[in-house]
Each structure stands twice: as C-alpha cells, then as structure tokens.
C-alpha cells in the first residue's frame, strides 16, 4: 500500500457561490496518490459542490483547483484532456446509466469520446473485469434494467476505470444500494487503491463508510472544513463539537447522544464568527467569556484538509494552554 507524498489534486482556497448562497466558502484540500479521503457532512454543507468543482464540472468563484501542481484548464478541449485523469462515480447507478444503452456501450462511451487507441473490445472487457463483473463478455449485451443495483454501480465504476484515471471521485457511491451489497462495492474501491494505486475522494454523510475504507477524513459544515485528519484520530477522538455530535448520535455509539437542535442553516445566511456557534453544544453548555465572545464574532482560519486541523476557538485555547 503506497501513501506517497505526491499530491494529485488540490483545492486551493476554493469558494463557490450561487448568488448569495456560499455553497463552498474557502476550502483547502489535498488528494494524494494511493489514498482514500472521505469528505463527510450533511446535506447543504457543500460537499457535492466541492466534488464537482474538483472535477471541473463547476467553476469556482474564487480560488483554484490544481492537478499535479497546475491549475485546471478552462475551456472544453483542455477539460476533456483532464477528464482522463479524474473520473466521477455518481450516487444513483440507475440514473447514471442511459437505459437504452447496453453495458458495452456505457463502458465504451469514454473510450470513444477520447478516441483511445487500441482494441476497444479488450479495453471494455478489462475494465469490466477490474470492476468485478466476470466473465465480462456475459455482460456486454445486457441493458441496465436487467442488472441489480450492485452490478449497475460496477458498470459505472468500469466506465470510469476504462479511462485509466489516477483519481476517482465518488459521490455517495453506496447510498442507493442494499445493505448487503455495500460491502462489495466498498471492497472494490479498496482493491482499486491497493492494486492500481487509485486515489479516491468519497463524498458521503455516512461516518461508518469513512471508517470502513478511508485513510483520512475531512468534516464539512456550511461550506468549510471544520476538522480533518487521519480516520483513526478524527473518528475515535474527535476535537470539533460538530464531529463529536455527529458521532454521538450514531445508533450504535455508547454514551449520551448530543442531538443538535434545528437544521443546518441556509448557505446564504452563514452565521458571523464561528459558523457553527448557534448550534454548538459546547457554547450552550458554557464557555469562559473570552472564548465565547470570539465564537460569536471571530471567524476561524481555514483548516487545510491536507493536514490535521480543527476550526474551533475552544480547542485552540485548550491546546494553547
């Protein structure tokens, strides 16, 4: 298992705004070769927007995305070239496949778009095998509705693998699948990392998934990363009150559950100071005035997802002492 220091994809102070809504509000994140990062957060935190921005499907309002140190090309032709390196796996495998196209055509689509030289049939068979559909020839003529959910997701993954990317970005790859089938797809992603050195960014709201397959995890709230670090550290000894609350409400966790009141506020009305402070259980329980006033008024510096970090005034004070 390789965990090289080579950064493949980097979000450099990326912000994405849709009018007044700050979907992504300053994010720095690294994806390194041979590594799986989980981007965890609830709906509305901006994780899907960030994923699409990293793929070039969305233009950042400010900041830039760097692939192998160079900014992403703008314009159709340049982006098309980039697509050979970074591929997408969507959440809903049923919607992600054209219902009229056979499995063969779905996997060959990428090859044809990029006019990849070589024996197309062999390349398609190879991609299907790597995605776990064996023997691949048996699946060539099948149509999506003849396949199960797990098989469809494998076809989508095969379509991405056919282009031989170095980074895979998976948006909730197992959310629409049956429970007993999840393990197989997750095991596939791990195998791809081990055998091909494929890096992956897995966007999910499921912390258990991060525990299952990720090396590092970044927790997002309202457009910013609030905590990041190795999975063992963040998920077993979380520092940020939001992460702690998320972990405490999982049904199998022991100890009292900190159920936060209300829901994530609208991205167009980001609270001043620390964006989490209106719902923060730590603040509600009582903090010394010097810290509490900073929570309400002073915004925190951006946590670099490439390293371990926490965006919390109370934690800063504690570690400074």
């Amino acid at each position: 298992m390789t965990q090289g220091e080579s950064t493949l994809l980097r979000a450099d102070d990326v912000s994405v705004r849709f009018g007044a809504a700050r979907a992504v509000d300053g994010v720095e994140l690294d994806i390194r070769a041979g590594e799986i990062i989980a981007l965890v957060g609830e709906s509305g935190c901006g994780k899907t927007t960030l994923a699409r921005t990293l793929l070039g499907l969305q233009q950042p309002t400010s900041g830039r995305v760097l692939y192998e140190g160079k900014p992403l090309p703008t314009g159709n032709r340049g982006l098309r070239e980039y697509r050979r390196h970074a591929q997408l796996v969507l959440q809903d495998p049923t919607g992600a496949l054209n219902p009229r196209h056979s499995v063969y055509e779905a996997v060959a689509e990428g090859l044809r778009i990029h006019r990849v030289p070589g024996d197309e049939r062999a390349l398609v068979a190879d991609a299907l095998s790597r995605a776990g559909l064996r023997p691949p020839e048996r699946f060539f003529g099948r149509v999506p509705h003849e396949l199960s959910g797990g098989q469809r997701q494998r076809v989508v993954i095969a379509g991405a693998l056919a282009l031989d990317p170095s980074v895979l970005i998976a948006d909730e790859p197992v959310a629409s699948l049956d429970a007993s089938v999840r393990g197989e797809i997750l095991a596939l992603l791990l195998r791809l990392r081990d055998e091909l050195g494929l890096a992956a960014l897995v966007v999910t709201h499921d912390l258990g998934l991060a525990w299952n397959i990720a090396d590092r995890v970044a927790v997002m709230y309202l457009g910013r990363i609030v905590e990041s670090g190795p999975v063992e550290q963040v998920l077993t000894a979380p520092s940020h009150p939001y992460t702690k609350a998320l972990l405490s409400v999982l049904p199998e966790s022991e100890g009292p559950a900190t159920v936060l009141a209300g829901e994530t506020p609208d991205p167009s009305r980001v609270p001043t100071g620390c964006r989490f402070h209106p719902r923060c259980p730590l603040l509600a329980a009582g903090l010394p005035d010097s810290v509490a006033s900073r929570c309400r008024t002073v915004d925190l510096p951006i946590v670099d997802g490439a390293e371990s970090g926490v965006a919390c005034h109370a934690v800063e004070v504690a570690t400074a002492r």
Partner: protein
Amino acid sequence: MGEPLLELRSATVDYRTASGLVPAVRGVDLRIDAGQTLGLAGESGCGKSTLAMAVLRLLPRTAMIGGEILLGGENVTDMSWGRLRAVRWAEASVVFQGAMHALNPVRRVGDQIAEPIRLHGKGSVERVDDRVGELLEQVGLPARRARAYPHELSGGQRQRVMIAMALACSPGLIIADEPTTALDVMVQAQVLTLLSRLVDELDIGLLMISHDLSVLASTCQRLAVMYAGRIVEQGKAVDVLRAPRHPYTKALAAAFPTIGDASSRLSPRGLAGDPPDPSDLPGGCPFHPRCPSVLPECSGTDVLLRPVSEDRTSACLLEVEP
C-alpha cells in the same frame, strides 16, 4: 395483556403478473401489543413494504392476501369497504417512505394534516385547526408552519409533517416505512427521538421498517429480520443485534460498521450476489446461495422459523440443531 393491536397469522401476499403468481410475502407471523415497538429489517425485495401496506389493504388490485391479518382482532381482508375506510388512519396509520413524494406539492401542509381529520368527521373547522396546531407542536414544529407548502420545508421538517399526519386521528398503531432512510444523521437522530417520545407519551404501537439494524435496535424493543418473504430471525432487538443467530442477520449487522471497532477498519464486509428476485427464488433455504456458512443440506431443506433460545427464533439449520 389484552387483544394485540396487530397480529399476523401465516400472512401471505402474492402478486398476479403476466408470468404467474409472484410470492412477495410467504407466511409471516407477527404480534404487536399496545405500547410495543417492533422493528422489521430487510432489503429490497424481501416483502417488508408489501407487508406494511397489506395491513391497511393499500396494495394494488393485483395483490392477493392470504392468511390472517388481524387489526384489533378484526380480519382486514374480511372488512367491508366502509369499515376499512373507518379503520384506515383511525386505528392504524402509515408514515410513508420518501416524504418528499408523499406530500402534495400544491397544498398547504396544514390542509394535508387536516385531511384525515375531516374525512373521519371529527370536529368543526376551529377544532380542526386547533388539532392541526396541536399535532405540529407535538412533532416539534411551530403551529404557524401549517400554512407552509412542502417545498418550503426541509427534509427533516417534511418527515415531521408526515408523522403529524399519521397521528391525526389518534391511531393505536403507526407503521413507519423507512422513516429516516433519506435523511442526514443528525436529522435522523431527531426523528427517531421524536418517534420514541411519541410512542412513550401516547402509548401507541409502532411497526418500524428499515434496512439499518442499528437504527431499529435503538428505537424498537423487538426486532424481526425478513428475507425472501419470510421472517428469518426474531427476538429482543438488543439481543439480536449483539448476538445474531442467523447468517443473514450477521451480514446485515456487519454492513454498517461500528466506529472504533478495529475489525471493520479497512475491511468492508458484504455478501456476494444480490437480494433474491421474488419471482425466481432459490430452492431450499432462500439464503443459501449467498450464505457464508452454507452446508450441503441447505440447498435442499426449506427451513422454517423455530425457537433457538429464550425469546429468540431463527430459521437456520446451523442454529436450530442442538
């Protein structure tokens, strides 16, 4: 212990299709008393949603119900149309899956909650409005939200509206079909807390359906696991989760790992193959093609649910043999 709220005796549901009868539910025995909570776990195609809909005869015309489904002692299939309408919502109600699609997008939320109240002829206009306000407060929403349209509410709020609707006619039993599946972790926790509190306060029975064993175990007293139209394990929820006595239950439990558990770190566990197609079930034990502990006898013996220990039943040859 009086009459059970809901009792199923050898309940079956078959769908008539162009290619013959497809068995969705193949003989289920269940019992829920007042104030009890039962979780029904299973994946797509196991028949759990069909079972839930069968209780109020909400299935399409191609469905044929067999066996007995007793709601408050009365057999649902024998009820006249008028009696069925009176029973629907007033004795048992359903919180449907996917609140986004179960709510009418062009009507205000308050009107939709009021609809069953008006249909059952319970009260004048002001009383109805008061009742709607009361229900909204019970589920943790301010009463003035009755004037909102569904799209103005968030996912969690919509699910609360669904729960308020289910409580509208003060039923004795609530059937919640995947109530938290599409929701975020925090919102899921809020909704589950709400359901538990309501069950306690109002002393209603709850049948909760989900594919997430840990969610069911944290909210329900008892747990039944369904596979291919039958129950394969049943018992006290906490016990079933902690010490499953059927390979399928073990697999379901392993699918959602416990954070901090070193054995699941970087080793996702799942089953090979897919949940079976009800129209094409394997012979013998329907789980045997995917079972990690399969024995040669399993492909030939159809195993039924049998007691394996105190307050636990399981349909597995491995467990049943002494």
